[in-house]
């Protein structure tokens, strides 16, 4: 019995290791708190993305049609409300900004965001969208505490307003950010908006996540039943082994 216990503990240890963080070390980030099962949040996030982000960023691995299906939107709704580039319904989401124009304007081509949340994590993207501040020393006028000297201007400034940096004692590191000019949204509304946007980008990173969660429960229930029946068969066969 003790041997069996030890084995189970060993197996458990292996699983525990999986819960340890595999992210590269960095500052502790606040949790994004997004929820893929919240379809209304995904729809709001999609609206934000297509109003504020698609001007520069593509989601080249995501098709409008797939998005419509997964987010509970009709073809008309997508073409009217979200598709501003004149793309066809089955096309992937590609920005209209030519790469040459983008690299002239920003010094680099804005990255495709299809896999941004898979690569950086939802918490990172959420923190990034909440950490822009006015910086007169930056060529674009904006800077970011999560990704210092980012080439990206802050497209959501009308919503959040303008943050400015409070410098630490050394005069070089940013101690905290404060809202110096309020925007159209309250801070709580803005946090929710960025949470929705991160939620949509998390969906875009792995549309299959919606399916696997749906089927997973049934697969596991089936396997539990299968294992139970297999156990009964085993017990029956082994009755005569002494």
């Amino acid at each position, binding site marked *: 019995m003790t041997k069996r216990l030890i084995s189970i503990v060993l197996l458990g240890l292996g699983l525990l290791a999986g819960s*340890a963080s595999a992210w590269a070390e960095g500052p502790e980030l606040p949790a994004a708190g997004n929820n893929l099962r919240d379809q209304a949040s995904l729809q709001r996030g999609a609206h934000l993305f297509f109003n504020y982000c698609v001007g520069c960023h593509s989601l080249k691995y995501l098709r409008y049609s797939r998005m419509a299906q997964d987010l509970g939107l009709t073809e008309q709704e997508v073409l009217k409300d979200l598709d501003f580039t004149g793309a066809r319904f089955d096309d992937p989401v590609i920005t209209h900004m030519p790469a040459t124009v983008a690299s002239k304007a920003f010094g680099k081509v804005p990255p495709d965001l299809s896999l941004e949340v898979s690569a950086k994590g939802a918490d990172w993207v959420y923190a990034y969208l909440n950490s822009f501040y006015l910086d007169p020393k930056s060529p674009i006028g904006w800077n970011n505490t999560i990704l210092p000297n980012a080439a990206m201007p802050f497209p959501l400034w009308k919503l959040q307003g303008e943050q400015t940096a409070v410098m630490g004692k050394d005069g070089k590191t940013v101690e905290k950010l404060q809202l110096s000019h309020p925007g159209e949204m309250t801070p709580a509304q803005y946090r929710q908006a960025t949470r929705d946007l991160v939620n949509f980008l998390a969906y875009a990173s792995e549309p299959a996540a919606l399916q696997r969660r749906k*089927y997973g429960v049934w697969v596991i229930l089936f396997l539990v039943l299968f294992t139970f029946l297999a156990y009964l068969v085993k017990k029956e066969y082994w009755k*005569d082994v002494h």
Partner: protein
Amino acid sequence: MANAFIRWFDERVPGLAPVYRKHMTEYYAPKNFNLWYYFGSLALLVLVNQILTGIFLTMNYDPSATGAFDSVQYIMRDVEWGWLIRYMHTTGASLFFVVVFLHMFRGLLYGSYKKPRELVWVLGMLIFLALMAEAFMGYVLPWGNMSFWGAKVITSLFGTVPVIGKGLEQWIVGDYLPADATLNRFFALHVIALPLVLLLLVVLHLAALHEVGSNNPDGVDVKHGPKGNRWDPLKPADAIPFHPYYTVKDLVGVGVFLIVAAFIIFFAPTFGGWFLEHDNSIRANNLVTPAQIKPVWYFTAFYAIVRMVPSFAGTAVWGVIAMFGSIALLFALPWIDVGKVKSIRYRGTGYKVALTVFVISFFSLMLIGMDLTDTLFPKIFGSDIDITTWDNVFGRIMTVAYFGFFVFLWLYTHLGWEKTKPVPERVTTHD
């Protein structure tokens, strides 16, 4: 009707039925197998899963530096059930190592490598070696940034060989850096060459096992015990036919294993970034290095040994020799440990302590290879410690402990220091 069908076959291939009997219904296995004896059949199950899901992935994967990354996303998004097939393959790869590590550890617990099963063990070790190569090549195929840098680091290990190193590395990579040519050849090796080798070795592993018979948790040789069971008066009294007894028992193990696998596949396919790494969501880029380059979890213990052995005499090859040595020593285990008693149940205290230390050293080296000690040590010992020094001291102690296991075992058994307990005549338990 069914009988006529079987007879028809039997007349034409008379050799088939005896083979089936030899390996299934008349393969007599000890009746006292415990939890540790599930992992062999589970490894076979995972192998079949890897081959089947691999076939379907191959249909949609593009083995080129320009197309590989996109084709993986194509599989994840546009191929019907492609996401499930891929997650079964990626989860299977990690779980393959979980079950193989546990299967090997079972051998250490009950002395399954000892006479007369030396060849079974050596063939198993060859499987492990082929599996490591297979896993490494497969890991490169998605052509993410960690694939690229992982390939760079692992192939550069060959570059440390004096004199011929650089040429050897370029010969393996087919370029100065991992590139299209590398991807093409790794694909060929991953989908055809190494699977063939693996399958052949698995057949030989099983053939060798069925020739000498299975060991058991008591380490008692049932073939030398009393004869005569319900099925055959000449077969061991303490053994039962593999089929149906162990086939139905293994089916329960399969069920439990699949529940764990399904949980990962459907709810945590990246397993927090340990099975599918975050940096692999970024396309391979030879200009941008990931913040931390580390191999996937199942290689970390061996990788830690490379890191812990310092370079001297102007070459870093010693770490590489130590890493290969850590595996080579496992091959030689049947000749290092010549103790007559097989099972840990009846072995001396020295063996129990040594095996515990060995397990601790392996897990500790894994922690170092995973870069987890970098966050663990400051939490335990305060944030002002010098992490590199602590890492090196801890890692070197654990490396010495790993190799010390084999040295101790040689001395312990060759010089007759071991005080064993009496081994029973018959197997003691079964469940």
